[in-house]
């Protein structure tokens, strides 16, 4: 596709560096079509999963049970079991919602934007991060619904011909959220499934057991690998990618408007949409790295997911992390520059108030530690990279905590100030949602090809595509 993609003279198999000092090869060794099919396809077709899969799945499943317990108790007793009250009416539920929806952004960024930009290195991780996106949206979408006093009438927020003449309030960003997140989930699901179809056919054809043949056969929708199939598939895939691209920017912008449309100091800020989007991609890539490093190790995918992938992802994290740091700086600057005493007090309180230690922890884990990614040695050292990614995951959660809770707990009138303390049910719901996420992820690894087989075969056939700077 791109003429300069090819860099002649580079030996396909050897670990060489590009002029900019990056590893150039997407494959560690000489890959063949059959090798690709076998490496990826065998994971879902084998009878026994490796021991780490079982350990991980059992832990995730237990956390999922914690979530069910927390939700059941919530439905019985109401949102009073959480630490929320006036003035902090938006507690962990909204922190977790924004955190998860942010994590959900890497998938579409990798799938759609990198696809349209011909970044072929995305192939090894796109399927995985798309699945992650879907599961993260599922976790995210749960929280605002649980945060409703009566979750069972959540459908009141949808415009439908009801008996109450209660049309949704379309001037409220909370209604925009429903549409933004709903659209995002639908498009992500279609995109993910469309990409899966040829791979499901590959798995179907390699399957030995009857139930596998039927299961993957039904899901493959009769894919016969014909040229006509491929032509339509590619058109549909590109169209969906083009549709999904604006969503990467719009969804988290809409989420940020939940805050910036409000009048509250600490929320009422125009920097929010771009800074939230950057933060979303930042946390999304951090989560991809956190999950891919152990999975690559367990399933021995070193040949397909190479250090170059980690290097590129670390670069994206470094850039978006700097944008996020700039956002923190501008927030502080604007509150001083505005001359508004409430805004200035909000910033002082955020840094030196009762939740000040969380702010400083945020600065450490989300701004200072990620600067290690400037070093190429850190970017290619998987242990170091894993730790940095974990630190960013924590940092992005803390960021939402700082924005939501420290802004709410002290507003204009000192008589209405208060404190927020999470309860055990707040923690149970947070860790339970991580359990839901991981359970779905483990099931995905077990039952669906986690790397795009057909796209990887394409790179094997046209290795020059894999040789970009």
């Amino acid at each position: 596709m791109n003429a300069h993609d090819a860099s002649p003279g580079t030996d396909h198999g050897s670990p060489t560096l590009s002029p900019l000092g990056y590893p150039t090869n997407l494959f560690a060794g000489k890959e063949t079509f059959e090798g690709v099919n076998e490496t990826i396809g065998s994971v879902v077709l084998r009878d026994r999963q490796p021991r780490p899969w079982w350990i991980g799945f059992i832990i995730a499943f237990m956390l999922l049970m914690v979530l069910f317990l927390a939700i059941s108790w919530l439905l019985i007793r109401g949102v009073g079991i959480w630490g929320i009250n006036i003035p902090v009416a938006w507690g962990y539920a909204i922190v977790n919602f924004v955190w998860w929806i942010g994590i959900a952004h890497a998938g579409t960024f990798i799938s759609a934007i990198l696809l349209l930009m011909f970044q072929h290195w995305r192939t090894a991780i796109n399927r995985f991060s798309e699945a992650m996106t879907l599961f993260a949206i599922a976790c995210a979408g749960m929280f605002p619904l649980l945060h409703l006093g009566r979750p069972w009438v959540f459908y009141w927020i949808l415009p439908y011909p009801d008996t109450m003449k209660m049309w949704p309030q379309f001037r409220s960003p909370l209604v925009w959220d429903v549409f933004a997140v709903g659209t995002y989930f639908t498009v992500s699901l279609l995109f993910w499934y469309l990409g899966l179809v040829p791979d499901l056919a590959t798995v179907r054809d390699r399957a030995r057991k009857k139930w596998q043949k039927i299961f993957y056969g039904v899901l493959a929708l009769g894919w016969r690998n014909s040229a006509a199939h491929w032509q339509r598939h590619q058109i549909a895939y590109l169209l969906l990618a083009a549709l999904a691209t604006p969503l990467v920017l719009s969804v988290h912008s809409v989420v940020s408007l939940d805050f910036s449309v409000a009048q509250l100091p600490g929320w009422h800020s125009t920097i929010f949409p771009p800074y939230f989007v950057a933060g979303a991609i930042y946390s999304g890539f951090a989560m991809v790295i956190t999950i891919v490093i152990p999975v690559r190790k367990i399933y021995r995918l070193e040949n397909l997911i190479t250090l170059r992938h980690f290097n590129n992802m670390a670069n994206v994290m470094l850039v978006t992390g700097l944008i996020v740091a700039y956002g923190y700086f501008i927030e502080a600057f604007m509150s001083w520059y505005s001359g508004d005493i409430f805004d200035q007090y909000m910033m002082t309180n955020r840094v030196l108030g009762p939740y000040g230690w969380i702010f400083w922890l945020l600065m450490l884990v989300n701004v200072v530690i990620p600067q290690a990614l400037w070093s190429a040695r850190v970017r290619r050292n998987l242990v170091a990279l894993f730790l940095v990614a974990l630190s960013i995951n924590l940092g992005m959660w803390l960021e939402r905590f700082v924005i939501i809770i420290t802004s709410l707990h002290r507003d204009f009138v000192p008589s209405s100030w208060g404190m927020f303390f999470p309860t055990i049910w707040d923690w149970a719901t947070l860790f339970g949602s991580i359990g839901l996420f991981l359970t779905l992820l483990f099931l995905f690894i077990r039952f669906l090809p986690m790397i795009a087989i057909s796209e990887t075969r394409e790179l094997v056939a046209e290795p020059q595509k894999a040789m970009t700077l």
Partner: protein
Amino acid sequence: MAQIFSRNANVHARVTIFGAVVLICGAGWATNEIFWSPYTTYVGVPLNQPVPFSHKHHVAEDGIDCRYCHTSVEKSRFAGMPTSETCMHCHSQIFSDVPLLAPVRESLATNTPLKWNRVHDLPDYVYFDHSVHVAKGIGCSTCHGRVDQMPITWRVNTLYMKWCLECHSDPQKFVRPRDQVFDMAWQPPSNQKTENARLVGQYHIDTSGRLMNCSTCHR
């Protein structure tokens, strides 16, 4: 290698996909139908009562005013249900020993009120006041229909919030002169539009939209 799927598989796939669409749309339509049908709304469904009281007989044939029995309709939130003594004003003299009225006589003798089955029962989270509606020129028949033609009473309106708001969003359509409120057969005049605009002004009905506030009814 034997084929797993027969030639019919394509048909099955198409039927499944289109069937799912039809099924989902059909489920939506059916839900809507059920919610608007008498099965849910009880519109037009006569309720059994301890005594088969006929509004048709008492209002249309005897000409008794609504307020003879529903005494507090102009003064209170609750229109008021007649005491057994009220029934006995007449029925101690006429039909005084028919078996049909035995529950009324027993109620009087034992001093325990009759337990009527409510035809119009609003949920407890709705604040509704008869007196203000009567005072602002909303007639009985606007909500309760032609009670004078009902042998046994039934609902003519759903009491859904949507129905309440039809009038609260545009009271001009339903208002009538105060002296016509208890007239069962009242019909809007031909110059209703200009006349009703005048009435809305005269009765100080708030058209600023405040009648549509949540807290107007959910207090």
